């Protein structure tokens, strides 16, 4: 009886910790707080297909980097540490690019242009490895990274969809119209700014109500 009660308390405690990590990440992840990751969203998400490819790449990269950083726990030399993570992320992006281009849809990563390789050096991917980032357990880091992926998807996919509809008039068009003013980065900046503000307002509103 006592063992069952201890197990239940342990499960409840872990669920509460997970909830805290998710809430904290929704409110203050690097994308919402510091526009980390906005480079690839603004530059590459000119269509919904590009946004989906970007989301898939983030879904692989972020948990991987989070897992490695929570295992490594700042044991590497501070000069070597940044390039170690850049190497891991660049290798992952390279292999993922080949895999997606060759097996899923030819040219889907090439359509992202220079922004696919830029993902390996992006602040959103390398946020967990910053010197002032708190040390988390493996479970907490993975939860945080998956929540960040969801936040990025919520921002990136509507941006890609809106820009493609305004530029071409339909979704999943090929080839993507890049001469349109809506495919220009300045429109991406404006859209991303407004969407981030809306996201932040929604999170603040719903998390206050939940309390």
């Amino acid at each position: 009886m006592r063992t069952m009660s201890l197990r239940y308390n342990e499960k409840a405690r872990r669920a509460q910790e997970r909830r805290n990590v998710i809430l904290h990440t929704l409110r203050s992840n690097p994308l919402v707080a510091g526009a980390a990751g906005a480079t690839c969203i603004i530059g590459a998400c000119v269509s919904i297909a590009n946004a989906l490819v970007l989301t898939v790449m983030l879904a692989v990269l972020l948990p991987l980097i989070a897992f490695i950083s929570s295992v490594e726990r700042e044991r590497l030399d501070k000069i070597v540490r940044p390039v170690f993570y850049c190497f891991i992320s660049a290798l992952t992006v390279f292999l993922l690019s080949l895999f997606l281009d060759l097996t899923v849809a030819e040219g889907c990563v090439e359509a992202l242009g220079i922004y696919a390789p830029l993902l390996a050096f992006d602040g959103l991917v390398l946020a967990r490895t910053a010197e002032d980032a708190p040390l988390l357990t493996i479970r907490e880091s993975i939860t945080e990274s998956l929540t960040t992926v969801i936040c990025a998807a919520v921002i990136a996919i509507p941006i890609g969809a809106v820009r493609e509809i305004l530029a071409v008039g339909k979704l999943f068009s090929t080839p993507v119209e890049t001469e349109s003013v809506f495919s220009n980065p300045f429109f991406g900046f404006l859209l991303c700014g407004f969407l981030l503000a809306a996201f932040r307002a929604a999170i603040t509103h719903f998390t206050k109500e939940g309390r």
Partner: protein
Amino acid sequence: MTYTMLVIFIQNAVISGAAGLNQAYLSAFKPKTIPITGLLVSLFTILCSLPMYPLNRYYGAETSYMPVHAAILTVFIILWYLIIAKIVSKIPPLDDLIGSLIAPAALNGVVVGIPLLLNYNQKGSEISELFGAGFGAGLGFMLAALLIAAGLRFSDRAGVPKAFGGAPLMLIYIGILSMAFSVFDGGSITYIRF
């Protein structure tokens, strides 16, 4: 000089292409470090572009596939960063001055983006082009970070809604700057297309 001016104003990597945006934003919070970071960005862009020169010139067809080109570039960025970081760490006064700025400058979207853009647009087959674009990359980064720093001074005003504070307002501000920069060429000059 032409390539430098093109990369600073007409096709600024940060404002016109969003490359290195996060680093420019973070640098804007420490305005005194912007000039040194900009010079380091120029240095790393030139150093990383130079080994790509023979590839662009003689093996352009074989290495033009973006992931392959990016993989080769990444190796050079890591090597140059390790060399320069190790040298600087051995000189204490230099380490105090620029030690903490080397990683943000080397592992920067601008350093990665400019050589990739030159390859993507089939440019970069002249040494003068590499030097000009590399030098302009750092100055363009400096210009972008200074403009963002100027905008940040107004972002704490009372009239700004809470949801727009910080990153959202900064993105809208840069979007307006980007719109202004995009009319510099009048649609007739496209040196490098993002």
